[in-house]
Structure formats: structure tokens, C-alpha cells
């Protein structure tokens, strides 16, 4: 098979790659570009471990061909931290111990960031629905949901004068 030449933008960097016509974006990211943060859990769009953002839309990289990336703007987990400074969501995932084995974590982070960019004050239900396509076999989701809600709360603070946060989690 002849390879297709693709020019795209990944995390703001102009990127060129060649790929087979039937190669997924996930395979391109991992095997051709060495960006192994996006994970392959199922390869069928069920687990969300390969979540990336394409032109502002959250998608599974396993359900998109590399060839489709031509001229698109792609954001992956590798673009989330600013150098050594973690994104607030990454920090909150650590603070809340919202991960164990870590395979699902990049997908959850990318998906949660996409949610908070659209809705800075989601309800717990909204967080759970938005993240329903991200599967975790370790944590049981509660800590992840708490980390996302806590991040949203912190990120809203500068914009609105809020009552002093007296909240401390009691429930385990």
C-alpha cells in the first residue's frame, strides 16, 4: 500500500507524517509520532482511553483514520501540561488519588478538560454522563468525578467572587 502524506497540527505544532490509508489516528500518534500518552484499551470506541480533541470535538483516536487528520487541529494528553507545570485537572487527579493503574487517566483528563471548556460548572450528573465513554477498571469513578468537580470549582474562582471555600471532603 502506498502511504499518504498528511500535514496537521498537534498540540499547536505543525506536524507532518505519512501513514497507510487504513491506519488509525491512534496508531499514527503512538507508533509513528512516539506520542504514547493516548492509550489503546479496546480499539473499538468503547473505553475512551485514546480520547483526543479534533477541531474542538472530543473523539476516540481509534475510530478515526490518520488520513482524516489532514488540516485538522488535534489536541492530545501530551499538550495538557505546560512544560513541568501540570494542568489543574492533572493536579486534582493527583490530589484526589483519582487513578490507580493509570491506563485510563490520559483519556479521562482529555475528556474532562473538554467538558470544563464547555461547562465550567457541571453537576455531578453532567460529569458522569460526559465521562460515560471513559472506562476505568480500578478506581470506581467516584474519585475521578470528585477531582473534576473540584477542578471546576477552583477554575471558576478567579472569574466570580465566591464565598470562601469551607468545603472539605468528609465522605470516603
Amino acid at each position, binding site marked *: 500500500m502506498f502511504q499518504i502524506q498528511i500535514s496537521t497540527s498537534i498540540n499547536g505544532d505543525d506536524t507532518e507524517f505519512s501513514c497507510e490509508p487504513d491506519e488509525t489516528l491512534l496508531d499514527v500518534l503512538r507508533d509513528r509520532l512516539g506520542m504514547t500518552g493516548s492509550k489503546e484499551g479496546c480499539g473499538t*470506541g468503547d473505553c*475512551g482511553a485514546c480520547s483526543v480533541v479534533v477541531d474542538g470535538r472530543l473523539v476516540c483516536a481509534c475510530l*478515526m*483514520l490518520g488520513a482524516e487528520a489532514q488540516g485538522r487541529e488535534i489536541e492530545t494528553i501530551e499538550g495538557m501540561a505546560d512544560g513541568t507545570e501540570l494542568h489543574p485537572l492533572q493536579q486534582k487527579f493527583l490530589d484526589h488519588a483519582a487513578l490507580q493503574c493509570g491506563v485510563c487517566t490520559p483519556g479521562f483528563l482529555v*475528556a474532562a478538560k473538554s467538558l470544563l471548556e464547555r461547562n465550567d460548572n457541571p453537576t455531578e450528573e453532567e460529569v458522569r454522563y460526559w465521562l*460515560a*465513554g471513559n472506562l476505568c477498571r480500578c478506581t470506581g469513578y467516584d474519585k475521578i468525578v470528585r477531582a473534576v468537580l473540584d477542578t471546576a470549582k477552583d477554575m471558576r474562582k478567579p472569574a466570580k467572587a465566591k464565598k470562601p471555600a469551607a468545603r472539605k471532603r468528609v465522605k470516603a
Partner: protein
Amino acid sequence: MQYHAPATVKDAVKLLAASKGSTQVLAGGTDLLVRMRSGFSEPDNIIDIKRISPMCKIARDGKGFAIGAAVSSAEMSENPALAKAWPGVVEAAALIGSTQIQGRATIAGNLCNASPAADSVPAMVAAGAKALIRGPKGKRQVAVEKICKGPGKTVLKKGELVEAILLPAKPARTGDAYLRFIPRTEMDIAVAGAGVCLTLDAKGVCTAARVSLGAIAPTVLLVNKAAQALVGTKVDDDALDALAKACSAAARPIDDKRGTKEFRIHIAGVLARRAAIIARDRALGKS
């Protein structure tokens, strides 16, 4: 395999008509890529329609809507005019998969994938939607219920593709709804589904109705007898009972891991009844 990304519908049709071997149209890819990966589909050609700008848009078509074949479910949900006019169709499309899937999956793809359990199809059938088909001989419109011949099979001929889904102008006092049953709250395939669209007169008497069932036959069914159970009534309990009975009578499902025949026959009536109540309340402007 060759990957093509034409910029016009005309070019897409040319490619489809001239292609040798098996050819697949790629819209959202949420079914096609899974099939390719599992080895069920090994196309020689893929024609990606997402570079065809009119197919990526929702257009007001007179008082109705033309939903381009590459429009994702998420884009449908984000269109307030569409969601207001045809909430049943938009809600059905919004039931398909996760946020990630919503960002890619299309109702034209859901139709052409021809699964009997496709969630958006019964809703489209109830709404009286048509598929706008483009091929080497030009355009034709086909009622959505006539597109699928059986699981995985459509009436599309060589060189043809669905360009858009056409939703009609909605008459006054009309409501639509789609409900499905799955064993959990989200992320599953319908065990059975029912779509209802009905129109009431000023006195609340039903003057027109369309009732459809999914996942209870090899294709989505338009159940005229169920619609007749509503017409001429105020969609009261007696009419709803007759509707449910007609739906259960029309269902001819299989037993599989998702549900038994018996259960599907029963639930088809239950879902149609509940969907009719929602559609009626929407027609009355209650919700």
C-alpha cells in the same frame, strides 16, 4: 485500500460509481472503523464525505430541515431550532454512544449501517423523514423506512450515497418522541425501541400519527395499525392500550443475549405507549 476525500458530492458520486472492488462511504466512522478492525469489512476504497462542506451542515429546507450526511449527533443536539422542531429525532440521535461517539456518529450513517437496533432510525421514520440520495443518475428521495432491506443491507445502488436526511416541516400541534429499552442507563444497544409522531387538532383529537418500532424485526417497522389506534382519539388510555396491543402484535423479534422474544414483544407495546404520551404532551405544548 485507497482513501479518498472528495470536496463535492458530484466527485464523491463519480468516485463511488467508478470504484472497483468494495467501497465504503466514511461519515463518522463509528461503525465502519470497528468493522474494519475486527475484519468484518475490508474495503478496497473508502470515500470520506467530511470534506464536502454542504454535507457537514444542517440547512433549513423551507420549513423543514436538511441534515447533511456528515453532521454529527452532537451538532444536531447543539442546533436549538432542530431540537425544538424534532425533539424525538434529536433525542434518539443523542442516545447513541458516548460523548466521543456523539462527536462523530451521524444519523445518515446510522441509517446506512442498517442495524435493526439503530436508535435514530425509528425516530426518523416516525417523523416522516426522507433520505436524499445522490447517484450517477441524479437525485432521488426515499422514505427512511424504505432504505433498509435487512440487517446490513440497503436499497442504495452502485454509485449512490445518502447526501442528507430531510425532515419535513412540522405541522401545528405535532409532537414526536423516541424511547428505547436497555438494561442499563446509557451506552448500550436497544433491546427494543419505539418512535411516535402525532398531530392533534384544536380539540386535542389526533388527526395523524406515525408509529415505528426498532430492534423487533430485521428492519425498523412503520406500524400503520398502531397509528390507526391513535387517529380519531384524544390519545387517552383506551387508545394507548390499543396502540400497545397493535405494536406487540406487529413485533416479530428474535431471542438473543439482549432480550427474549417474549420480552421484546411486550416491551415494544410498553415503549410505544410511553412515547405516545410524550409525543401527545409535546403536541399540546406541555413539554
